[in-house]
């Protein structure tokens, strides 16, 4: 019994960490430009498809990874240049950006189907096989999830340093609070905005490459449940707290597994999203958005 509980906590936390990783892209944009990018999850799908394309060209893991992430960063820059800035300059606000990115999400989904077909593809076993696992006593953890934990740990440290120990972090916060005032104070707002777009797409793009062995290289990575759950994780972190976002995702994953284990697999999503809505009603600013440590 205890073993079942622990196993479900571990698996739930693992799948939940993937939601949190996707949610980080939402947080980065909100932190700097206070906009929600509804095409956030598209970067994950693009990252996975770019990786298998380069890998299929026999470029090896390292080069495939670097080229994919570089292109995703460029895509982030393009997103700013061709979607965000034109809308902003013509007086469009948050709603227009949301609608534009929502359409962009559908655009990418359909472009991928046209270019690659709709069949899910297996991801090359560069991170190990999906059935490889590590046993801790009677608890089993997939090696794929261990990779995700490792990358999340590195990302968390980098994000902490970037946002709290560098001038860039201060620029991010200043630009988010008042764009004009920040510019007057000598902050290069254009650079800050570009960087935030690139970071947001890069993090989700890397997430896509890490998640592909679990989600397969499929359009589900660009519009399925993971996108919604990524948003849910970001909202649990108050849209501003990267650590809270990861924790929010982990809790959502565990909640899902416990709903299956103790209530019903049929009502799993109904139960977990009901709890999520309830939590948001009680604390709209995000249950994992502790202000004392807010970045």
């Amino acid at each position, binding site marked *: 019994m205890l073993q*079942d509980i622990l*196993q*479900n906590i571990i*698996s*739930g936390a*693992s*799948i939940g960490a993937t939601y949190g990783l996707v949610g980080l892209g939402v947080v980065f944009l909100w932190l700097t430009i206070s906009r929600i990018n509804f095409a956030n999850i598209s970067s994950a799908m693009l990252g996975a498809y770019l990786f298998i394309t380069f890998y299929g060209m026999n470029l090896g893991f390292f080069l495939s990874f670097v080229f994919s992430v570089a292109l995703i960063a460029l895509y982030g820059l393009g997103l700013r240049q061709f979607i965000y800035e034109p809308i902003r300059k013509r007086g469009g606000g948050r709603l227009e950006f949301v609608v534009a990115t929502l359409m962009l999400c559908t655009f990418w*989904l*359909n472009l991928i*189907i046209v270019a690659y*077909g*709709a*069949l*899910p*593809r*297996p991801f090359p076993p560069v991170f190990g*096989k*999906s*059935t490889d*696992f590590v046993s801790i006593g009677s608890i*089993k953890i*997939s090696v794929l999830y261990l990779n995700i934990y490792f990358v999340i740990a590195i990302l968390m440290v980098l994000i902490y340093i970037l946002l709290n120990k560098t001038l860039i972090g201060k620029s991010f916060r200043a630009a988010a609070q008042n764009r004009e005032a920040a510019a007057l104070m000598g902050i290069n707002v254009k650079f800050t905005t570009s960087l935030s777009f690139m970071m947001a797409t890069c993090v989700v793009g890397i997430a896509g490459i890490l998640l592909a062995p*679990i*989600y*397969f290289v*499929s*359009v*589900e990575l660009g519009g*399925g*449940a*993971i996108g919604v759950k990524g948003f849910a994780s970001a909202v649990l972190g108050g849209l501003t707290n990267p650590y809270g976002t990861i924790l929010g995702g982990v809790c959502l*994953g565990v909640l*899902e*597994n*416990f*709903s*299956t*284990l103790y209530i*019903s*697999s*049929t009502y*799993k*999503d109904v139960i977990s999203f009901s709890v999520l809505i309830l939590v948001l009603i009680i604390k709209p600013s995000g249950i994992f958005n502790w202000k004392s440590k807010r970045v």
Partner: protein
Amino acid sequence: MKLGKGIFLVLVLFLSVAVFGSTIKLALVAPFTGLGSILGDYIKKGALLAVDEINAAGGINGDTIELAVYDDAANPSTAANVIRRALFQDNAVAIFGPNMSSSVIGVHPLAQQAKTPMLVGATSPSFRYTVIPNDYLFRLRADDGVKVDNLVKYAVEVLGIENPGVIYGSTDYCLAAYEVAKKKFAEYGIDIAAAEQIKEGEKDATGQITKLKNAGIDGLVGLTHESEAAVSVNQMRQYQVDVPIIGFSAWGVPAFTDLAGDSAVGVYSVQGFNPIDPDPAVVEFVEKYEAKWDGEEPSDPAQAYYDGIYLIADAIAAVGTDGAALAEYLADGAEIVGVQGELKCDEHHNFTNVSLISQFDGKDWVIIDKIF
């Protein structure tokens, strides 16, 4: 003078049609976008192969077939819109698809209203003729009721499963199959030990497999789509639940084995089609399909719609393009031998009941039994 030119042009047009034949418009409605689009590609390629073959052989009584393709995104309301267009604007002689059961249930009255045959590859038993008596609705492959019956029969009689677990999806395809499985197990006096649902898109089935394991199952019946089949099998292996696994038709296709990898080895499946089937008709079809589509291997829907095009061609050759006459002929007179064997409309308006029990050996699905 102008009148003379006009008459001349009309005559040229008339003679062209008489000499070169006119076109017979058929509509193909399948998902090419959205998450159900896995099947659209197979369907279109199977149908186009047949159309090209028939046209290359001189068409139907000299008339060539034109296949208009519509995307329903596996969505009933989109399917209704495109079928209305195909029927009432483009005047299609027959409709192929939709391929999703939920869409068929929503749109089949349109075929009746337009008096145009609708031939579908969707497999839910919930629209058998005995349930929905639509004279214009026909099915091109064995329905899930037949396949699940055969699956349960094999699980109980051959694999000796007495305490089965079931993992099933949430679409009509999966739910209808689950109902049939429950009924069939009950006929053997067997209660399902645990039935767990994995929704489409889910990537973690730990909770479900924990419950199945704790229920002491001695066999797992899988009634899900391909991706969820791969997730379930991977995690069954990961948590070392060592029982026979027998899956539904979506478990017996390359889309599943590619995703599941080594975990798929040993899995049984009930299939409507197997590309290594030594049946000469299947061998010929696979060779032609691979030659036309750059070595791609066909799947179950491809052969069904391929056969369907030949069925309608036979019907048009026999009775012309009148919808009511076509429907009557398809129901009573049509009888051809296709890739799936002998095709003849039964009391459910199904043209075939062929299914295979196969086991995956790591490379191919080895056919254990072929049931007609």
